[in-house]
């Protein structure tokens, strides 16, 4: 145990460095995101329903948007038949964002929380740009 002290010291230092992110962020946990549905367009709806149920949309909206993009751009398709039989225009601007017009309170609450960068508006719906 000639070098026991050094081994112990550097092991402790290693553990501290390893745990640094947890130690530094202690107590600064963010509240779970709460996306807001309070837009004039949604409030005007008689029956507040999206093209699919909330749970499904929460998990699959990115896949859905990707499928729409593929269909619209490559196959020239424009109509999407929702699970409930209703037909929607396959358009981020005209369908999704016409109701969810509150980008900051809706999209970005979750995306900020999960640290997934949104760059839709780099190109789409320039009205959002101030």
């Amino acid at each position, binding site marked *: 145990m000639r070098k026991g002290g050094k081994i112990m010291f550097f092991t402790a230092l290693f553990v501290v460095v390893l745990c640094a992110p947890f130690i530094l962020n202690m107590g600064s946990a963010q509240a779970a995101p709460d996306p807001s549905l309070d837009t004039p367009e949604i409030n005007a709806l008689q029956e507040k329903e999206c093209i699919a149920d909330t749970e499904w949309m929460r998990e699959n909206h990115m896949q859905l948007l990707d499928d729409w*993009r593929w269909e619209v*751009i*490559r*196959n*020239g398709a*424009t109509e999407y038949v929702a699970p409930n039989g209703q037909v929607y225009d396959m358009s981020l*601007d005209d369908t999704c964002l016409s109701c969810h017009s509150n980008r900051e309170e809706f999209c970005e609450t979750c995306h900020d929380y999960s640290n997934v960068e949104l*760059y839709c508006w*780099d*190109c*789409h*719906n*320039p*009205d959002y*740009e101030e």
Partner: protein
Amino acid sequence: MQKDMKNQNSMERRTFLKAGAAVAAGAAVAGTLSGCHGGPITNKADGSEVVEPKAKTRQWGFVIDVPKLNELGIFEEIKEACHAYHNVPDTGNPKTAVKWIWEEEYHKTFPEIASEYLNEEIEELGFPVLCNHCADAPCVRGCPTEATFKREDGIVSMDYHRCIGCRFCMAACPFGARSLNFSDPREFLDEVNPEFPTRSKGVVEKCMMCSELIDKGETPICAAMSQGTIIFGDLNDPSSDVRKALNENFTIRRRVELGTGPSVYYIVDGGEA
């Protein structure tokens, strides 16, 4: 004994390598030959109009009556309308210019057939040039991410989301019909048309024949504004307007010798006949 085994093995290895080399050489030769002759290519993206005419699929195209268009003097208007609708930025620098449709002189439009002594009237004409929506588009072949692709109706279109800005397509296009956004295009747009998305930095763009309007049953903007001097239609449909125009006029296409099968035809001699 062991030595014998070894010898046998090495012989086998030798024969194996020989056979392998022969197969590889055969494949290479076959590949080159089929490349030269076109061959019966069944791949959709490779289906060249010369090799395998598909009568049933569409191929949208244009016939441009250049003298008449010049006479009307409306090209600048058409270009502005196209660029304004599609949010094409005006960078003000020819090195970083983004162009969907623009004007070029005869010598630059048809360099391989332009001669030193040219009819003065033709020399003075401005030729509208744009993406030729080739039947066998080299940009589609070059694109490593399938961002550029050929639609069923013959339009060479782009999915800007997938473009990584590698510019292989720009190198492949013999018509210079593709432009890269060297910086954020919104900086150069006075007004943004909310109907059409802008692009972002590092993305290549080009004319997409107003595919979004065609999907709605409308005519591309340039053709709609041209007062009949840019005729739009299905090149594979013998009764279409473009085919009628091709029947009635002598037309030329750009860089036909490259075999890309451009879908834009030019009437150069006027339409008086």
